[in-house]
Every structure is written in structure tokens, then in C-alpha cells.
């Protein structure tokens, strides 16, 4: 944990204890025909080596856009980063040349995407796509790259790796395909992996297997992991800390167990209440009323106010700063004390 949990985010010097990745006051906007969509509005978060940060939020909360900005794979234009810093190992990646960023991608920061079927190239064998990492970044020969690909497939426990290395993505099951995506991200032993909803497209049983695999692979190394998800159930076991995003801002961040025990933001509270529970079987499932805001017309004040059961006048006028709630905890709610209280 670092001391940058406030919105102001006083820049910490890049020392040996500096986080692996630190996002400071990041803004991302998209220029569309209908106006400027502000997808990310001043996000701060950090990940240390060996740590797992879960970024939680609904579709359109800006969690994936933040990740794409870190990876440097945003489409620009229409995307634009008007403000902010993304410090990786102490260096601002937004100030690097395109070539320097390319060399970080895949080698130092890797990404696992949501839908492995569409994210893998349909006309190239998985062995080729895995081997490409070694051939491009390490200059290995085709043959050596293939041998490494087989090792990788073994490592993510794909049965019969040697026989299947020349198969194509459509010949694998959903869970196996996601393992291939994970293997691809692991290939060059990056310092940081960003997993963007890695289990959303999978069956529940397969979801658990894939999450266990990710957690286990991370335990074996010092790599940092950013896990982007909208599924609170998934994060409890793997994450060290959680950042909850809403309308392009972080509304709450906290160590994982505290947030489950005692949320400090009404939105987080709503999310936790909407998890189906066996002991409430038969009762109506709780849902946060209303819809996530249109990013072209984000409500004034706290973006969550139209859906918030606790909203007061101040919520409709003033954007709440990220209040420090406790050690390594913050909540962007004017009434965080009241939220914690009840």
C-alpha cells in the first residue's frame, strides 16, 4: 500500500519501495460525433510486485479503458489522454516513445482478454501464436519457439500439449482457450499481468479452475496482477485489494476483506447486496435501481447520485473527493461515515 489513496495523489518519489505500477490522475476521453465521452476521470491506483488488485465495476465504468491505457492499446483517435501519468517501475509510460512502449508490451506487462475465441487469431495455430512471443521478443528460431510453446501449454495444464500445439483456437474448449491466453501472457514472465474479465465467457466450474490457475501462477512469482471484473464473487479469494470504479472514477478502494465486511460507499454496498445468497433463497434479488450513466452526460456532483438511496442535495452539486477512511482505504462519498455506520 502506498500513500496515494487520495484524489490529489501527492507524487511519491520513485524509490525502491515504489509500486510496480502507479496510475496517477488518469483521464481518458473519446471524441465521438455526439460529443466527448469522458470514460476515465482522474483514476489513481497502484499495484506492488506480487500483489493482486481487483478493479471492480459495471460495463462503462472505465475499468477496461484504464487497462487499455496502461497497455497502450487504446485507439487514438478517437481516444485521448488529456491528463495523467502511468508510472511503470518509476517511469511515466505516457512520455515514452511508441517503440519503447511496444517493447514493454508482452515482455513486461501482458494482458489477458475476456473472450479467448475472438482474441486469438482464428487462422493461426496456437503454437504459432504462443511462439510469436519468443520469436519477436527474444529472437528464437521457429523450432525453439515451438518447444517453449509446448512447455508453456504444459505449465497452464493443457492436456497433451505436444500433440495439440499445431491445433487452431476453434479446436479447443472455452476453458482451454482461456488457458492459452494465460499462457501467452505468461510467456515472457512479465512483471505485471492485466486480466480483463478473464472468466466472464466461461462456465462457472471452468471459471473457478481458471481463477485458481491464475492465483497459483502468481503465487509462484513476484508478478503483480490487475484483475478487472464485474463479479464480486470472483475476487474475494484472489485479490489483495479492491478498487471500485463508477463512471470513470474510483469510488472506493480498500483491502479485500474490509470491503466485504464493511463497505464505505453506497455503490459498493449495493453491489455486495446484489450477490445471490443461499440463505436468502426465495427472497427477491436485490438490484441497484437505475442504469449506469451515459458517459456523454454524466450527472453533476457525484455520478452515482441518481441511483443512490442516501443522496442529499450536496451529492447533486459537489463531486466527492476520495476521503481517507482508514489505512489504505478511501471512499468517494460525502456520507462515508454514515455508510460505514449502518
Amino acid at each position: 500500500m502506498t500513500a496515494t489513496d487520495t484524489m490529489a495523489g501527492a507524487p511519491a518519489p520513485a524509490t525502491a519501495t515504489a509500486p510496480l505500477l502507479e496510475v496517477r490522475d488518469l483521464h481518458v476521453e473519446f471524441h465521438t460525433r455526439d460529443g466527448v465521452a469522458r470514460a476515465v476521470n482522474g483514476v489513481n491506483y497502484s499495484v506492488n510486485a506480487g500483489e493482486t488488485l481487483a478493479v471492480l465495476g459495471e460495463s462503462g465504468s472505465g475499468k477496461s479503458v484504464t487497462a487499455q491505457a496502461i497497455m497502450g492499446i487504446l485507439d487514438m483517435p478517437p481516444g485521448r489522454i488529456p491528463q495523467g501519468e502511468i508510472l511503470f517501475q518509476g517511469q511515466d509510460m505516457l512520455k515514452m516513445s511508441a517503440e519503447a512502449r511496444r517493447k514493454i508490451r508482452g515482455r513486461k506487462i501482458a494482458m489477458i482478454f475476456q473472450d479467448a475465441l475472438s482474441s486469438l487469431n482464428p487462422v493461426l495455430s496456437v503454437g504459432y501464436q504462443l511462439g510469436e512471443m519468443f520469436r519477436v521478443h527474444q529472437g528464437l528460431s521457429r523450432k525453439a519457439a515451438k518447444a517453449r510453446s509446448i512447455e508453456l501449454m504444459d505449465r497452464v495444464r493443457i492436456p497433451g500439449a505436444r500433440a495439440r500445439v499445431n491445433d487452431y483456437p476453434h479446436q479447443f474448449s472455452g476453458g482451454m482457450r482461456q488457458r492459452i491466453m494465460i499462457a501467452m501472457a505468461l510467456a515472457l514472465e512479465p512483471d505485471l499481468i492485466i486480466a480483463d474479465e478473464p472468466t466472464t465467457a466461461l462456465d462457472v466450474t471452468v471459471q473457478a479452475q481458471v481463477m485458481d490457475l491464475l492465483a497459483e501462477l502468481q503465487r509462484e512469482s513476484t508478478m503483480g496482477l490487475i484483475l478487472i471484473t464485474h463479479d464480486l464473487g470472483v475476487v474475494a479469494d484472489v485479490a489483495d485489494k479492491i478498487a471500485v470504479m463508477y463512471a470513470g472514477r474510483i469510488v472506493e478502494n480498500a483491502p479485500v476483506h474490509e470491503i466485504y465486511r464493511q463497505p464505505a460507499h453506497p455503490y459498493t454496498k449495493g453491489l455486495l447486496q446484489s450477490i445471490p445468497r443461499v440463505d436468502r433463497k426465495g427472497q427477491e434479488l436485490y438490484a441497484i435501481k437505475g442504469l449506469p450513466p451515459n458517459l456523454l452526460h454524466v450527472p453533476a456532483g457525484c455520478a452515482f447520485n441518481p441511483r443512490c438511496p442516501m443522496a442529499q442535495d450536496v451529492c447533486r452539486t459537489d463531486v466527492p473527493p476520495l476521503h481517507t477512511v482508514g489505512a489504505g482505504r478511501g471512499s468517494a462519498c460525502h456520507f462515508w461515515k454514515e455508510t460505514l455506520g449502518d
Partner: protein
Amino acid sequence: MGRYVIRRLLQMVPVFIGTTFLIFVMVYALGDPVAAMFGDRAPDPATAAQIRHAMYLDHSLPAQYVHYMKQIFTGNFGTAATGQPVTELMGSAFPVTIRLTLVAFAIEAVAGIGLGLLAGMRRGRFADTGVLAFTLLVVAVPTFVTGYVLQYFLGVKWHVANPAVAEGAPIGDLILPGLVLAAVSLAYVARLTRTSVAENARADYVRTAVAKGLPKRRVVTVHLLRNSLIPVVTFLGTDIGGLMAGAVVTERIFNIHGVGYQLYQGILRQNPPTVVGFVTILVIIFLAANLLVDLLYAVLDPRIRYA
């Protein structure tokens, strides 16, 4: 795969018979070849009947067709109006036209895919609009207009290229006719590639390729282009036949003595063996190109498997 090829080859038989029979009927309807031999003079009826018998013209149309097919499978395509065997004409004409077609095909594929890639990657920008406007113009103007205009300006006025092709049709002389022949197809290839590239550029696997840290060149050639070219290859393959047939006009303009020239002569002189013989070979080339495209399709896209 082997079974698939055999099935496809068998399917070609009725197509081959159907097309050649249609052509045979149409050429027969052109007029009386014996009368054509005598030009303006009316032939002596006895002589005419004798020639008619010698040329197997005194039988019914289906019988003539069967007779003709038997003949060509023994390698006898009959004699042309000049008295030369048709096979001799083919021997001189096809190499020329094939060379012209290959030049045109190379121009079509390279320039078409290049322009399409450029436009597709810069969708909505100046280069894209330029390519769209240019291809629209090319498609809208008939080949004979493009041909004569380019021949006049590049060949006659500015002396950039030879306005006519020399005997033996050297490759250098064939570049301008090749360009004219390729023009319309080139425009279609460019537009097809553009759409395909623009669509695939947004695909998830292209984003993955970028996230892997691959150099841009590799992302475009290995990942984007490879997928985008699948529909383009289909078009290019079937267009080989189209180019050879389209050469009729181009060969007239640039005075190339190829298939188009011989076909034109055959029609002008109402000589069935020439016309039917040449078209039969063209049909075979067209069918072979189609089969090749379908097989290539499976190579390009592993999701397609033929059983």
C-alpha cells in the same frame, strides 16, 4: 480432401458439357459457315453439299456436338478459316494471352490489395476517400475508353510506353495493356480489401497482437492482412478466367495476337471450330481456377475443412 477434390472434379463434368453445348448452339446460330467461306458469291450447291458433308454439318445439331467432342478429345480441334489447324492457333495465341493475363493479375493483386490496405487502415481519411473516388471512376469507365485514352496519352503523346505490342509480345510491351485489362478488377479488389481490412482492424485478435508487443508491420501483415485476404483471394481466383475473357477488348486495342484476337477473327469469319475450341479451353481454365480457389480457401482458413 482427396474425396472432396474427386467430387468437385465430377461436378465439373456437367458444367463443362453444359457450357460447351451452349456455345456450340450459339455459334451454330451465327450463320452458315459454308456460305461464309465463299464470301459474297453464292456457292455451287453440289460443292457446298460436299463441304457440308466433309465438315459433318449435314447431321443434326446434337450429333454434330457429340462428333465435335469426340474429335477434341483426340486432340483435333478442326481447322480455322485460314486453313491452319485450330490447335496451331492455340499454340501461338494462348502463351501470349496467358502472359498478358499474368501481367494483369500481378498488377491487379499488388495494386488492388495495396490500395485497399491503405484505404482500410485510414478509413474516413483523405487516402481512403481518394481510393474510393478513384476506384469508382475506374469501374464507371468502360475498358475500351480506358484503353484508348491510356494508349493515346502514354503511348502516342508522351512516349512512356509502346502504343502497340510487338510480335512475340515481350513482357515490357504488355505492362500498359495489362494495366488496362486489370483496371476494373483492380478497383474491385481495392474496394473488397478495404472493407475487409477495415472490418478486421477492429477485431479482438488484432488488439491481442498489439498487446503482445508485436511490431506494427507484423501485426498488419501476419495478423490483419492474412485474415482480410480470405474473401479477396476468392475474387482473385475466379477473376483469372474473367481476365482471359476480358482480353478480347484489350487485345484489339493494342493489337495483341492472343486468344481475344483469334476469337474475334473466328466470330468475324463465322468459323465454329475456332470459336468453340478457344471457348472450350477457356471454360476448362475457368473451372480449374475455381477449384484451386476453393482448395486455397481451406489453406487460408483452417476452420474450413472439406470432407
